[in-house]
């Protein structure tokens, strides 16, 4: 599954750079062009085999690939076939990139494709927009009301108010 490439490996400066990944240095993406040998030595993913098993997998997941497309993640370099082969994501961005195929896959695994559980508090909040958080809390609230769990509903209402107020504060700055 090697990609066409030009240029030499940035690590050893000797072999042809066949792998183009994004390394993260202190949380910031930095593009890297390296050869297979250096990539393996770094402890990267082994290259895909061309075995029958692989061909079979590709056959099975063909409809998913159609939805997800063949583009590689610009951050970690994974594509949908690689993800399905290892059944492991490479980075958080893959969840956005493969979204069209993932909703169905998650329905198969979890019987659902939408998070209804807790939302991060504290510093972790910065990873989520206020609007999204409020939407999510409202969904939880509707669920609680439906189940007549009024104690939880009251708790959620308080939380929604809190989130909205704290966002007003942050807009002011």
């Amino acid at each position, binding site marked *: 599954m090697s990609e066409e490439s030009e240029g030499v490996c940035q690590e050893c400066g000797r072999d042809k750079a066949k792998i183009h990944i994004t390394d993260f240095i202190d949380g910031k993406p930095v593009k890297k062009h390296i050869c297979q040998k250096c990539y393996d030595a770094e402890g990267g993913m082994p290259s895909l085999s061309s075995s029958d098993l692989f061909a079979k997998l590709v056959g099975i997941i063909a409809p998913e690939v159609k939805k997800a497309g063949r583009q590689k993640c610009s951050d970690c370099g994974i594509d949908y076939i690689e993800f399905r082969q290892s059944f492991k994501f*490479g980075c958080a961005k893959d969840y956005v990139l493969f979204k069209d195929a993932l909703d169905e896959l998650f329905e198969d*695994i979890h019987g659902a494709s939408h998070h209804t559980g807790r939302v991060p508090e504290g510093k972790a909040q910065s990873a989520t927009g206020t609007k999204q958080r409020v939407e999510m809390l409202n969904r939880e609230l509707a669920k609680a009301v439906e189940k007549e769990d009024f104690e939880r509903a009251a708790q959620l209402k308080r939380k929604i108010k809190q989130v909205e107020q704290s966002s007003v504060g942050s807009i002011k700055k």
Partner: protein
Amino acid sequence: MLEALKNKKLGRWLQGGPQDDVVLSSRSRLARNIAGYPFLTRAGKSQVARIEELVHKKILDAGFKPPLQYYRLDRIDPFDLRLMVERHLIARNHADSDLVRGIAFSEDESLSIMVNEEDHLRMQTIYGGMQLAEAADAVIKVDNILAEHLPYAFSADYGYLTACPTNVGTGMRTSVMVHLPAIMMSRDMDKLTRICEDMNLALRGLYGEGTHGAADIYQISNNVTLGITEQEITGHVETATKLIVDLERDIRDSLKTKHGKELDKRLGKTLELLHNIKSISSEEALNMLSLLRMGTRLGLINELTESKMDELLFMSLPAHLQTIARREADSVKRNEMRASYIRKNLKSLENKNEET
């Protein structure tokens, strides 16, 4: 051996809890990744080391009370790793990995945080007996503390983002460890598997190979992590466990009333065998001790106190056995050591009974 693991009482969860005639322990774990870093599957060596450094520092900064001990697993003795696996402090994968990785745990071992296992962070709480809600509440508290210091990878659609799609959403895996000798003896596993299937829970033997676990100890855990709340997950496992506890107790009672004599005979034979045994494998020991554990709980034998029984079961595992001997040993030697350890403990318990 690590000082933290030596000469100290076994983890708090091993000292029993509510309904511990059937439920040995309740566990809850959350998987988290740090925003802005790739998952470990796609992280280069230097990135893996940076993630460990960051998370390590933040765990210490978080100022847990009482403070947690932190160890770099890639720097400690492989023997200590096996001990930690047997103590349920770390997962087997975490012990076998060759990444830069770590573990933080509390003195009583009820809380542990794995760094760079499959995800950047996996925190778990484990309590004795049936304490699922307590374990879940405790691990959520830990999560809230760490969230003050670390930006988690999170999406509004999919929740907490994990390396494996089977953990996404809540990232929560809640489980109980249950002792089911009577259900196994009745050879009627249908009811058990049906309870688990109905609630979409996974059932697996904890020790040994195959579906029939050694010592009749099983783990029941949730399969689904997305589109479900943490309370719902914990509730499902709790509901199923209650049904299973009732089932196990019913069969135990009917065994005692209908087959009491046979059971007495088997218990007597097993005790006699263990009193005289010269060598025994871990699996054999676990299976015999499992029967004795049930006999003790049914009040059919009184040579063993309940807590001593569980300790014996636990200390028969390979790595722990070697800590008693304070040395490593091959399997032949281990089987002899195990036999002598069990003999000695049965005898000392008998003496105690005679004294009182």
